[in-house]
């Protein structure tokens, strides 16, 4: 099935920008710079249009046009934040920040205390209230969670010198932390591979006849560029050029 011209053009653009950005892994080059600057510019443009179409027009312009003048107050407070750039009147920005701080703290502190503090303490203790109905594996799991929590908390308790039994407990806490960091690192590697797989999957899609072999064409053009550059720059390996 023949694809629409705009889809094919989009495929060439996506394949080109992906290959340009990946080309940095070989060495810095103008194509990488083009893609990098284009990304920054497009990102800023995108954010600007989002601010205008999703915030400015529906949240300020339309209500004011309908006579809902109350929205002017938060709008002015928001604009006051910009006075930070004018030293003489920068004190005005405090009013906006004060509101943001009060509003943010009011929402975040109770929710944080309840969700991340009380509920987590409860979650660590509660299993021990129903040991009779738990399987041996669940009991062991709950013991490990409780022991891990206590040991890690001791590790972060700095008001007492870590020596004797306290040192032993906090050392166990380090092992729990290391297990977490190991799991987090493993997952990070997996996530990065998934993202790379996603780009390769797209490159493979764009390598088809329906996209007029966009991936192969751009890849070949990049290889030709690097070969010519290598010949012109006196046949220095890329690693030496970077060192120079």
């Amino acid at each position, binding site marked *: 099935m023949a694809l629409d011209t705009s889809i094919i053009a989009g495929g060439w653009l996506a394949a080109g920008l992906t290959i340009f950005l990946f080309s940095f892994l070989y060495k810095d080059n103008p194509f990488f710079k083009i893609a990098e600057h284009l990304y920054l510019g497009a990102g800023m443009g995108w954010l600007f249009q989002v601010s205008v179409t999703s915030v400015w027009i529906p949240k300020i312009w339309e209500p004011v046009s309908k006579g809902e003048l109350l929205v002017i107050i938060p709008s002015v407070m928001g604009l006051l934040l910009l006075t930070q750039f004018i030293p003489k009147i920068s004190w005005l920005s405090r009013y906006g920040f004060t509101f943001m701080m009060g509003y943010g703290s009011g*929402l975040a502190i109770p929710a*944080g205390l309840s969700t991340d503090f009380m509920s987590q303490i409860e979650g660590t203790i509660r299993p021990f209230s129903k040991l009779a109905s738990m399987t041996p594996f669940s009991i062991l799991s709950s013991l490990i969670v409780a022991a891990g929590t206590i040991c890690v908390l001791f590790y972060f308790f700095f008001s007492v010198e870590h020596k004797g039994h306290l040192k032993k407990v906090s050392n166990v806490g380090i092992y729990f932390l290391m297990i977490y960091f190991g799991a*987090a690192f493993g997952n990070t590697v997996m*996530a990065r591979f998934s993202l790379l*797989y996603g*780009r*390769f999957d797209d490159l493979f899609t764009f390598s088809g006849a329906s996209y007029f072999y966009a991936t192969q064409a751009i890849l070949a053009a990049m290889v030709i560029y690097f070969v010519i550059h290598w010949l012109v720059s006196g046949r220095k390996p890329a690693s030496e050029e970077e060192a120079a």
Partner: protein
Amino acid sequence: MKETLQKFFKIDRRWIFLLLAVTLFVPIVKPIGLPNKSISQATTRVYENIEKLPAGSFLLLSLDYDPSTRPELHPMAMALVRHAFSRNLRVGVVTYIAGSTGLIEELFAKVGKEYNKKDGTDYVILPYQPNILAVMTQMSSDMYGIYSKDRNGTPIAGMPVLKGVKSYKDMSLVVCVTGTAILDYWVAYVGDKYSVPVAGGVTAISQPGYGPYLQTNQLKGLIGGMKGAAEYESLIKQPGKGTSGIDALNLAHLLVLVLILTSNIILLFVKYF
């Protein structure tokens, strides 16, 4: 001998990049079909929570990811929507990431057609909203106070998909798919505060951090990364991009393991022999 082995540590890292690229690319060109046999309990819990909902229940999806995390999150969002449609659930979609709007359109254009579901009748896509906390708070009392129209500008009041839905108490489950901290907000400001069941789908990087919420049941389930997407596709028996990515992930992980083991063995050999 030692000198020869030590050269291994000075290898140009670009050879490793190339090796990794080939390892990931080969299964895309020629799928090997490595099985995905382990399904985590956290993913199963999301599946079971949706599976037990009666037909016609309202499922709120918060799809908050942009193209930067698409390979991991789009397959799981697609699997979730497929599951919801196959169970004849009503689906509402909100987003707090502007960059996700195009992906949401793409998703529902495809899956909606597969299940013959109609916009406004079976699902509704609400527009992007800034200031997530204000929106979440408002939705607890009256969602029409913040969302009066869908993303095409059609008024949502009276839409069949939203019949009887006014606030969180009318929603059976909230599932947030995100690569950001938005799932934390759903847990803290909606799940815990209004006793709404909240489940999530996150990138593999964020996954370990949600363990405590799973243990306390503050999160009803969690799909993690491309592996999680593949697991969910297995559960609904509809292989997609998550499943096809497992080949590449398995091989890439194998390569990393081989490289770590080889370098450690060489290091030990150089040091002690």
